[in-house]
């Protein structure tokens, strides 16, 4: 499903450059639950951002379902972004000015779905996550775990093929973290959504079926 070939990423620093990723080759199949692990600054977040089209690699090829992403035009890339990829962040990153319902609805707005379609999809997700009662609350009225649930709900409402999660439980205590990880596992097994998470926690990594160790911009082993 996802193929990275000799992907590199570097930033200019002074007269030299700071290499984050070096010649990364990586293949992820449909339906996998992958955990990317590694120490701080090893490049795992950058890798995730490149996978999620938030950053562009400095060199190398990126194929998504056999298509060259780095050769896509802006429009096609946006479509891929909207239709196939969902994001979950460590800091939740909900829009503070919108209610739970509206936050979840936003990706559907960008996909230009009709009002009734949006309504039914958002209702489904709220129902599934047991959040119907909270739909009119604002993010700052929710606990961290609840906010992350909204974050995941928002990521899956547009029915993506892959969810990219950047330390999704990093700001949560262990009980909440467990709930979130169970949810990811369920999404992976029942809904067949490919999940790629960046995590520090060995425990969290056990929910997945594959671990990628990254160190100094290289994939180990």
């Amino acid at each position, binding site marked *: 499903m996802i193929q990275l070939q000799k992907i590199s990423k570097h930033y200019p620093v002074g007269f030299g450059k700071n290499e984050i990723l070096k010649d990364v080759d990586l293949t992820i199949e449909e339906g996998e639950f992958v955990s990317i692990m590694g120490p701080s600054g090893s490049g795992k*977040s950058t890798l995730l*951002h490149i996978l*999620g089209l*938030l*950053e562009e690699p400095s060199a190398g090829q990126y194929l998504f379902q056999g298509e060259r992403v780095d050769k896509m035009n802006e429009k096609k890339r*946006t479509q891929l*972004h*909207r239709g196939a990829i*969902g*994001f979950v*962040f460590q*800091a939740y*990153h*909900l*829009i*503070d*000015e*919108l209610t739970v319902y*509206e936050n979840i*609805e*936003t*990706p559907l*707005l*960008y*996909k*230009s779905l009709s009002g009734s379609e949006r309504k039914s999809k958002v209702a489904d997700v709220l129902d599934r996550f047991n959040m119907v009662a909270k739909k009119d609350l604002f993010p700052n009225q929710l606990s961290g775990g609840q906010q992350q649930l909204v974050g995941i709900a*928002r*990521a899956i409402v*547009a029915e993506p093929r892959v969810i990219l999660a950047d330390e999704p439980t990093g700001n949560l205590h262990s009980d909440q973290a467990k709930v979130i990880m169970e949810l990811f596992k369920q999404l992976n097994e029942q809904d067949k959504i490919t999940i790629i998470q960046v995590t520090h926690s060995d425990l969290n990594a056990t929910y997945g079926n594959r671990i990628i160790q990254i160190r100094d911009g290289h994939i180990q082993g």
Partner: protein
Amino acid sequence: MFRNYFLVAIRNIWRNKVFSLLNIMGLVTGISAALVVYLVVYYESGFNKSVPERNDIYRVVSTISFSGDSVKNSGVPVPVIAVAEGNIPQVEKAVHFFVNNTTARITVDGKDFPNNEDVIFADRNYTDMLGYEWLGGNAATALSQPLSVVLTKERARLYFPGLSVDQVLGKQVLYDDSIRATVTGVVKDLSHTTDFWFAEMISMPTLQTNASFKRIYLDDNWGSVSSSTQLLLKLRSSARPQEATAMLEKYIKEHNTKDSKTALSLQPLNDLHFDTDFQAYRRTADRKQLNILSLVAVALLGLAVINFVNLTTAQASRRAKETGIRKAIGGTTAQLIKQFLGETLVLTLLAAILSLLVAPLLIVSFHAFLPQDLPVTQLYSTPVLTFLFALAIVVALVAGIYPAYVLARFQPVVVLKSNTGHRGGKVWVRQTLTAVQFTIAQFFVIATLVVSKQIHFSLNKDLGFRKDAILTITTPWLDPDPSRRRLLEGRIAALPEVDKVSLSGRTPIMSGWMSITMKYNNGRQDIEKSVEVRYADSAYLPVYHLRLLAGRNITTTDSVREWLLNENAVRAFGFRRPQDAIGQMVEGHPVVGVVGNFNVGSMRREIPALAIGSDALRSHRTLHVRLRSAGEGGVVWQKAFAGMEKAWKEIYPRDEFSYEFLDKTVENLYGQERRMGNLLNWCSGLAIFISVIGLLGLVIFTTDQRTREIGIRKVLGATVWQVVRMLTTDFMKPVLVAFLLAIPCSWWVMNQWLQSFAYRTGLTWWVFAAGGVIMAIMALTAMSVKTVRAALSNPVNTLKTE
């Protein structure tokens, strides 16, 4: 999608109350100003639009040239009427009427009314052309018989309160106690946007019934032009106005003389309301003034737009996270730009709605600079509201595009990765915009100071005569009996509170001109000069303390027998010393004395050559009264006013008593300047207001960002003063740059303005310094609202929150 944007917009506005309030206040001020100006422009350009076939109608106007000078007059010589009616093929219809400017008193059922010059002599052509709706009487015959009059509904209600239209028909109106006209028709008033405001139409044949009317209005001399003779032509739709003008020119040429030439031209009806060369009937709109107002509105609107850009980009970091998230879940830059523009639109629409409430206040404030008959209710008419809506959209686009671009440009990765603040847009952009803003405000402040300095100078300059404690009383100007004026003079002179009285012509200083051409033969050649004249009796000089430099005072005579000249006249006729002029014959009369120069008009006017003669029978109609000292609390003067009124009532029982102090006459010469000063006062106020709230917004934002820094500095030993200075210095830079930019701009513009005065105040350095100080004080005061509090805050509290 729209609902989502709208909700975010409203919630954001609500969440950032302070910034929204500052933004909206600025926008409301700017939009209100633009709204009021549009209202005026819309109102003025709507004049005479209701006249049927107005595009084919022209008014014939005259330009009379004589001895190198020319005068424009909105009337025509009377014989031109007959020519236009019969001899010009391009004319489909010629309509003429005479404005009645001679009737002094209109009496209805024993009650007197003044003549406001809204009474005309007209015939059926006139009422047909304007498309009057007849409420009573026969349109075809109402004006065909002598001694008939047609009233508008309003006028009928004034003269015959409580009577129906049918009851008014057949009633009588008495003009000057001698001409008795019967009401033969009542018409509906035209809409108020018309220059044809005449409310009383006397039938044309009435002119033939009265010898003095015939003499005044039907003067068949080709060389005399009166603005009361009005001629309108409706041309055939195929005809070219130039051809008609050429035809008229052919006829008038035959009658031009060597000394005086009259040229006729066609003024389109559509220009009538705006042509200041040829006055409209009641009020001529001044395009220049409209342009000034428009500029002011654009300037204020610009200031508000700058505020918006500054405040929005300054707090962009608050919105950066939202941009990042929206992009991460599929939003494109274009969509985000649209969203942020939409938010701006919500804000400007809100400001537009509030403007509808604020605009009436502005109309009251700018009252003196707006048409007096401006109907405020038109503010709520469809075209004005449409304009307001369109304006809100345009302002949203202009103000919103740059901030929207800045906000939508944030890259999701950069924003979402870190928690540090992100700067929105370039700081130098904001500083430049602030500098522009303050330059405009600074310009207004300096201009205000210069205008008021010139007004102060004009009112306090030594005019060459005494002007305090002098008042003038004008006798009814159509009173044919000079003995009554002398009687009144005697009565008033006898009052113990009165020092001295002169029965003369106009005051030494007055608005307008009064000049004649005078000839002097110095033995070798004729010297011809245009000379200002005043007609006066022998008490004129002592009342006004005019200095006699040579010879003797004038003696009072019924018609001119001798002259007093001023110094400039002496020089103009080529005499070296005042004494040399004494005894010389000028314009057929000897010069008996020479007076010192004095100002005869506003400071715009150079002191001209002037002659004083005595012409008691025709010209001495004004009493010039010098009072004794006002006494404790003005009691003496109160008694004087009462005594004068009593004397007046005994002699002119049917006329209103009124007087005017000379100081007031002088002040009234500067009506235009004072209106300008008033407008500038308001502009400076509003410009300062908008700029300063914008500055305050920026200060609030940066100071909040630096809370931690301030805490640390205070812990390290910084004093309150040092912190305030640190916070203020950066913001005073654009204010200082603005000051430096405003100096040359305002110097140039105000120097141009002062050039129109013959006697003017200087552009001294302290005017600019004072302007700068005012601006600096305003800016510092506004900033201190935030900076002082921030500097006084306890560092323990600010650092704990981190």
